[in-house]
């Protein structure tokens, strides 16, 4: 029977020959993930169900990234719960501040997730790893606590929407613009409970960093997972990072899709998501005059090497506008190190940016770079809900690193062509 890539990975992990949408299955988990906000609750559940040992200390990743370096006593206590649990259970993939970064940046970077894996994380952006041909999905802390004990969870096989991107990308249009454009078409619940499969010549032409950006935001349409079939780009990325043998799954040509949506990219402009929804998008030419108090370049969506490099290319020999603040946060310690070697950090500092330590930063409005009442920011992150980055009467616009960097120079939302 023909299956999609998602169905094939789920079937393999449920030890079944075949699965179809709507089936309730129990699956084995290759990697279970939590962060300093979701892990403490998961650890509480782990203890409450009477578990004494984790199912496999190699297959759990506990990453401090949301409120670290600890922002206050309460978050220090939460980080401590995770640190002590990791020591007690000899969790192999616990990475301390200074040797770590944003969970969804470092797991692929360190080769901890590879094609064919099934990854469950207590974080909604766990869907990022779909860019590698992985089935990955976000859950809450209770599910994760039980997975840490048993290595298993139940899932309902989702129906798949296939997105077929064809054509050639116009200048300054990249993965972030494609996913924002797609969210605009699908709406904020257009893929609720479903799988989004990104395909077509345009996707095959994207770098891994841009693919991660797209898969990362599948959840903004409510999707259970976002996924891309592995190709040469995927294999080259994985070969440098992991010694495990990847399992390459691809969708059968006659696999059953709930819907196939064709997207012609030739005329797409850079996209901006307006407050207060990632699906509330407009093309750059229809933005109007929107002045900015703050610009944030970073996050699990756009805090990777290529993103920071793109920002530096635009900011080189330019200055951040008077009245605007630019915050740049490399997504991992290794990206930070490379950015220093390439002179990128120097360029950014010369332009007037402040560099934050690798962490989630202002994205979720809890730590570093919080907005005051009435302030307006453009951000390369993934959500712009009411109060997402600070005061409930602040505004967040979402865009690519190139647009964010150009906007920082001009002090208003604009593309690099306006420089």
């Amino acid at each position, binding site marked *: 029977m023909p299956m999609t890539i998602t169905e094939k990975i789920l079937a393999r992990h449920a030890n079944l020959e075949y699965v179809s949408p709507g089936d309730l299955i129990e699956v084995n988990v290759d990697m279970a993930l939590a962060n300093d906000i979701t892990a403490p609750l998961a650890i509480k559940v782990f203890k409450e169900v009477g578990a004494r040992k984790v199912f496999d200390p190699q297959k759990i990743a506990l990453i401090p990234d949301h409120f670290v370096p600890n922002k206050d006593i309460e978050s220090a206590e*939460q980080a401590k719960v995770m640190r002590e649990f990791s020591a007690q259970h000899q969790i192999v993939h616990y990475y301390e501040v200074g040797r770590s970064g944003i969970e969804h940046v470092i797991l692929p970077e360190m080769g901890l997730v590879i094609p064919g894996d099934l990854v469950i994380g207590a974080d909604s952006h766990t869907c990022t790893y779909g860019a590698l041909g992985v089935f990955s999905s976000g859950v809450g802390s209770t599910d994760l606590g039980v997975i840490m004990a048993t290595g298993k969870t139940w899932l309902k096989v989702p129906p798949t929407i296939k997105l077929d991107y064809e054509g050639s990308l116009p200048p300054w249009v990249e993965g972030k613009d494609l996913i924002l454009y797609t969210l605009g078409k699908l709406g904020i619940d257009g893929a609720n409970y479903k799988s989004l499969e990104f395909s077509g010549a345009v996707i095959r032409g994207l770098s891994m960093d841009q693919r991660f950006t797209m898969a990362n935001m599948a959840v903004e349409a409510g999707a259970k997972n976002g996924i891309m079939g592995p190709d040469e780009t995927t294999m080259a990325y994985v070969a440098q990072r992991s010694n495990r043998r990847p399992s390459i799954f691809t969708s059968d040509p006659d696999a059953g899709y709930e819907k196939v949506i064709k997207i012609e990219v030739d005329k797409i402009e850079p996209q901006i998501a307006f407050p207060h929804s990632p699906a509330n998008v407009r093309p750059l030419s229809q933005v109007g005059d929107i002045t900015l108090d703050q610009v944030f370049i970073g996050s699990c969506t756009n805090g990777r090497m290529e993103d920071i490099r793109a920002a530096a290319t635009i900011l080189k020999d330019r200055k951040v506008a008077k009245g605007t603040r630019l915050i740049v946060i490399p997504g991992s310690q290794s990206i930070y190190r490379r950015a220093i070697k390439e002179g990128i950090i120097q360029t950014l500092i010369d332009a007037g940016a402040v560099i934050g330590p690798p962490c989630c930063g202002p994205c*979720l409005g809890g730590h570093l770079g919080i907005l005051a009442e009435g302030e307006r920011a453009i951000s390369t992150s993934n959500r712009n809900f009411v109060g997402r980055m600070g005061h409930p009467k602040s505004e967040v616009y979402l865009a690519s690193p190139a647009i964010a960097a150009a906007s920082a120079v001009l002090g208003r939302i604009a593309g690099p062509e306006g420089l």
Partner: protein
Amino acid sequence: MKLQGRVWKFGDNVDTDLIIPARFLNVSDKDELARNCFTDLRPDFVNKVSLGDFIVAGENFGCGSSREHAPLAIRSAGISVIIARSFARIFYRNAFNIGLPILESKEASTSIEEGNRVSVDLSTGEIVNTDTGERYFARPIPDFMREIVGNGGLVEYIKKKGLAKQEM
């Protein structure tokens, strides 16, 4: 299992940042979380909500983050049931896991108004607006999920079923 309560009405796409903003996620104690539930959207909610009250909302309730702190805050604030036109996937799963029953009904979501007194029967999915006498039927909750809620959440359910004994 029958429940009765007074309704707090919400609109579409109530996201997890509105339910409990991230600035309050430096703790995971459920009573502390409850204190800040809906603080930006409806600052009076936590002071006026009574134990057993219902939430009736529109589409895609609970979209956004995977934070289980969101259903925990709502339940700990006193809400006994959420009825919505639809729920975001992760919130749906989290709500059952922590023992907060939720029901999907387009008709109930449209017709029920703020302050109405409503009763629900979780085993049949029947929803009655006792102020108007109108009846609606929610999509039935699968048996095993009703059992999870009946036990107060996944932790209690697992303890009772003894599933936790294997491999631990």
